[in-house]
Structures are given as C-alpha cells and as structure tokens.
C-alpha cells in the first residue's frame, strides 16, 4: 500500500511537472565511453549530433534550427542530441541558465573530458575541433555526413531529408 501511494504520488508529480512545462532540462555528463556509445548507435534511425557551446556565437545562432526541425520528426525516426562543450565548471553558472532562458528542449549532454585530442578523431578524422560541428548518421543504413561548420536552416533540413 505504501509503495503504491509513493508510486501514485511520483506519477502525479511527474505529470504535473510535464504538463506545466516546468520539467527541468536533463543534462547528462558524458565522457569518452558515452560518446562512443552515441556514435556507434546501431538502431535504424537518423542521429543528428551537434557539437556546440554557449560561448560559441555561431553555435548559439544555429541552435534554433535544430529545435525547430526536430519538432518536424518523430524521435524514433530522427534523434537529435546536443553535445555541449561548455567547461564543466560552467554547467551550473552558464549552461543550465542558458538552456532555460532559450527554452531548449532537445536532450543535452556535456562532454566533460577536456583532453580533446583523445576523442576528436572518434567523431570524424577530418575534424579539427572547430565548433559548431554537426554529425548526421544512420549506422544501420550506412549513411553519414559530417559538417564542421555553421549550418543554415535550409541546409540542415536538406541534409536530413536526403539522409533519411
């Protein structure tokens, strides 16, 4: 009985929070193993992984395109992931307030491994580490496109359409 009450309460709280749009943005802190897991996802859907940071002006500029276009697809078909390269010391002070202020709803992971040289090549061997950068892939279908540059809305939509 006690457990049931707790469950009901928990569900209620979740429902209320979701309904009011107050659900806190969930931020996942990731390292190289988690990054590799994302990059090697083998389910048959298109992944759109954007590398960005709040301190990167062109990244911030293109972020709304990802939010807008993501709303046009089911997550089962196209999965968007924002990988923030904000410094771990800036997560609470800078990143979380930014996500709230800009009403970012896409899942955000923060790469906490700052030994960049250890993982940049895992994303794409042509990448020099400049951000923004976007990787689109469907490993199951063998499709992949890496854009180490800022993308316009039409360009991003076109890339997704063509890779689907």
């Amino acid at each position, binding site marked *: 009985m006690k457990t049931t009450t707790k469950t009901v309460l928990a569900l209620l709280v979740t429902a209320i929070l979701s309904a009011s749009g107050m659900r806190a943005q969930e931020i996942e802190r990731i390292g190289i193993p988690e990054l590799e897991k994302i990059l090697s996802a083998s389910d048959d859907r298109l992944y759109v992984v954007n590398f960005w940071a709040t301190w990167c002006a062109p990244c911030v500029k293109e972020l709304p395109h990802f939010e807008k276009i993501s709303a046009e697809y089911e997550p089962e078909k196209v999965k968007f992931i924002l990988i923030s390269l904000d410094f771990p010391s800036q997560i609470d002070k800078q990143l979380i307030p930014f996500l709230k202020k800009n009403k970012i709803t896409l899942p955000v992971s923060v790469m906490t491994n700052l030994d*960049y040289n250890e993982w940049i090549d895992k994303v794409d061997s042509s990448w020099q580490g400049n951000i923004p950068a976007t990787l689109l892939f469907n490993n199951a279908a063998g499709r992949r496109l*890496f854009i180490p540059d800022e993308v316009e809305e039409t360009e991003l939509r076109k890339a997704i359409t063509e890779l689907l």
Partner: protein
Amino acid sequence: MKKFLFLIVSGLMMTMIAGAQSQYKAGDVAADFKLKNVKGETISLSQFNDAKGFIVTFWCNTCPVVKKYDQRLQDINAEFASKGYPVIAINPNDKTVAPGDSFEEMQKVAKNKNYRFEYLYDETQETARAYGATNTPHVYLLSKKDGKLIVEYVGAIDNNADDATAADKKYLADAVNSLLKGESPEVKGTKAIGCTIKWKKS
C-alpha cells in the same frame, strides 16, 4: 539512387573543401608572410635573424578558449623567446563577422594585456588559409633549417583548456624543449576544441 548520388556529391564536396584547406603538418615547409603588427609595422619571419624558430599561433581577442590560454601563451613566450622561439600571434578573424577582432581592438588588447609577443593582423586571411588554420587558438611550431621554415608541431598548447594546473600534457612546451635539445618532437600533432576562424562571407 537520389540518396546515393547525394552522398557521393557531398563526399566529393567535403573532399574538395578539405583539399582547398589542407593543413600544414609536421615536415612541411611553411610560408613566410608580411603582416601588420599592432604598432602598424610590417613583420616577416625573415626579419628575426637570431630566432631558431617560431611559435606561430592563430589567435584573436574574442574567443573564450583563447582567453583561457592568454596567460599561458604569455608565459610560453617569456620562457622560449629568449631561447630562440618567440611567439608570433596572428588574428585572422574577419572584423565584419567578429567586430571585437578588428585591428583597433587588437591594439587595445595588446596594450591592456601588455603582450610582449608580436600580435599580427591577417586581414586578407591569406596566411590562415596557407597554414590551413581552422580555429583559435591553433599553434604551428616552426624551426629554421637551411633557410627554410619547417613545421615541427601543429595543434594545441596543452590538454586542458579550462584549467592550466590540470593540464598534464604540455604538448607545445614539450615540443619546443625537444627542439632545444636537438631532437624532433615526440608528439607532432594534436587536435583541440576551439572557435572557428571567422572567415569573410563570400
């Protein structure tokens, strides 16, 4: 079929972009340049008769990663300029895209921070293109050999942008120290997250 063609075309395009922007790597011969410093003087590497080489660093005023490394680059210059490897910082950012990176702003930054190294303005972006620089900060360590400038190391200053004390791989300092001992650097290239160079809008 359409998708297949698209992939081929994108692949070709990416290769072309990469080809047009191929980057100097260790062993390549680097080009000298003539760029204006913050005092308005034209500077070339050929003027530095006593130098054994150079720490050419693509740099700017506005990038937060550059700011993180600001003191570290000054310290590196203080340590290595007298040993024959001065820092030569170059700002390639287009002032229309990044107004904070204009020549006037460079002058202010160099004065406020009391830069002891040359801070040059690559207004045409030709030098950044020739070197294949992609972001700031981006280091090219050069040594003089038989009148040529040989690329010895390309990449990051160290392995922790956020916290100098947590950096346990001092790529650049290690590479310069190797050259000072007459050895070739063990690590010849690294990659790091940085701000994309603000190219002119064509």
